[in-house]
């Protein structure tokens, strides 16, 4: 009888244990631990790899803090002995510190597969990662080489690790003989942050950059920069804004993807107040930039008295003008917010993708070769040498010659 009771008890315990381990992804994790998500590459629209749409919209219901400001953490890794070689494990959008998430992931690999863990990335900036395209191999490549990791950390993380890694591999690493599984010369043929091998093209706007994206950035930015087809943007993706304290105005400005805004700071984008000088207009912007392609400041003025019947809302006008301040030096004709006439609030896909591309490239990037098939012409190439003189990568070289006359002829 006692034996039967003992067996029954053991059976019940076994059932409970199994159920419990199923709850924790069969890993026998402790109570406070969370189960990571598993994913495969390429996965489109997966928040594990890409810049989530939530970056632009989601607010914490209780705190009202936008997703971008919550400083959420992410850890992406792989269990070395996982029979499924294509599987990755990830914590993302978590408040726990990266060290805790790494510990959990390592424990999962150990318990589930009796395996060591390869941490591929910690805190790839999901809301600030520029293109949003995520290249696992490129991130692994940076992590593999200590000197690259140091250089990336030193770069101020202006680009995501994924984009930085791919840029480095294609421009230097490949020639130097550096390697990483999933990276090859083929990886460099695709544009943007993704690649043909091991890449996840899951940006909110749908993937790696196309020639159309480059043409958009060329038309709306580089062609207007007067720097010979080089891009103009703020040095950092966090842009200072001063003179705007109204929460609904701030919320409208925050709707722009790719970049984030620091309100209350001096310089940067400045709200210069109201003017009645141009009665036909709702508002205007005056971005100023340096010869190295870095934006210096931008003033926004609203027309007074503000006419809601003609201009809809101040929020909409501000949002439109801020786009000019962050590098959209032109208008669209697609029924969206950047059309010359108001009143759509929609940030259309070309604008979203264009901004993502612009801020995935360092300021002053020459993108003519990317658009040459369409825009390249004899006259374009003819003046190339002259216009190259206008660009000053270091921002320190003094420019000389009949620059003004040359520009007027362009």
């Amino acid at each position: 009888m006692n034996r039967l009771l003992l067996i029954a008890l053991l059976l019940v315990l076994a059932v409970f244990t199994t159920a419990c381990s199923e709850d924790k992804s069969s890993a026998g994790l402790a109570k406070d631990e969370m189960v990571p998500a598993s994913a495969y590459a390429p996965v489109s629209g997966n928040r594990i790899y890409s810049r989530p749409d939530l970056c632009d919209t989601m607010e914490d219901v209780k705190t009202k803090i936008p997703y971008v400001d919550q400083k959420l953490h992410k850890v992406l890794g792989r269990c070395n002995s996982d029979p499924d070689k294509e599987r990755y494990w990830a914590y993302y959008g978590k408040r726990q510190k990266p060290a805790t998430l790494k510990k959990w992931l390592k424990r999962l690999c150990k318990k589930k597969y009796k395996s060591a863990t390869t941490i591929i990335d910690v805190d790839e900036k999901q809301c600030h990662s520029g293109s949003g395209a995520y290249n696992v191999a490129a991130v692994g490549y940076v992590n593999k080489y200590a000197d690259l990791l140091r250089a990336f950390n030193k770069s101020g993380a202006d680009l995501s690790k994924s984009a930085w890694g791919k840029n480095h591999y294609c421009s230097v690493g490949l020639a130097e003989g550096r390697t990483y599984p999933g990276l090859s010369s083929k990886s460099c043929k695709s544009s943007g942050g993704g690649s043909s091998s091991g890449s996840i093209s899951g940006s909110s706007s749908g993937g790696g950059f196309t020639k159309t994206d480059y043409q958009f950035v060329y038309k709306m930015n580089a062609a207007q920069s007067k720097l010979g087809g080089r891009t103009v943007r703020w040095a950092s993706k966090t842009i200072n804004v001063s003179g705007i304290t109204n929460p609904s105005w701030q919320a409208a400005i925050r709707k722009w993807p790719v970049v984030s805004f620091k309100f209350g700071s001096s310089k940067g984008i400045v709200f210069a107040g109201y003017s009645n000088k141009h009665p036909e207009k709702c508002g205007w912007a005056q971005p100023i930039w340096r010869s190295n392609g870095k934006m210096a400041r931008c003033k926004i003025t609203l027309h007074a008295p503000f006419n809601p019947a003609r201009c809809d809302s101040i929020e909409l006008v501000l949002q439109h003008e801020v786009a000019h301040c962050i590098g959209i030096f032109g208008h669209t004709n697609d029924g969206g917010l950047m059309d010359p006439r108001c009143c759509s609030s929609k940030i259309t896909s070309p604008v979203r993708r264009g901004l993502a591309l612009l801020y995935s490239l360092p300021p002053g990037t020459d993108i003519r070769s990317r658009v040459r098939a369409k825009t390249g012409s004899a006259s374009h190439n003819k003046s190339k040498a002259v216009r190259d003189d206008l660009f000053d990568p270091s921002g320190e070289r003094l420019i000389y010659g009949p620059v003004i006359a040359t520009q007027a002829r362009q």
Partner: protein
Amino acid sequence: MKRLISALVVAGVTSLAACTLAATDKQPALVYMVVADVPCKEAIQSMTQKLEKDGFPFDWTDRSKGLLSVGPITEDLKSHDRFTRIKQSYRLSFSCHEEVFTNVANQAELEGLDMAGNWVAIIDHALIEKYGIRFLDRLKL
């Protein structure tokens, strides 16, 4: 023969270095601005009106090409260790696109009055750029 080649190389390098020095010695820096969402003609008119209002002398070097010279504008310098006054000249180049976008390129040139009473060309790029940006900033519409 080897000596001749060496001499030629040395001479070439020396002249190139001299050329660079001469060029950077007096040449100005450029900064840029776009006025977005105001008709180009209106924007240019507003900016010249602003110059008039501020009492800055200006002259259309070539109106058809949109070339405008501003200055000299002279200001006292209180906290500079070398110069007591600064003379600023700006060459603006206007061009229009999409009717409501005005591109402005600003080429700044600075001279400083030193303690001996001589006007000396300023070649400090950061300072020239700072003045160039400040000047564009003043052209607020």
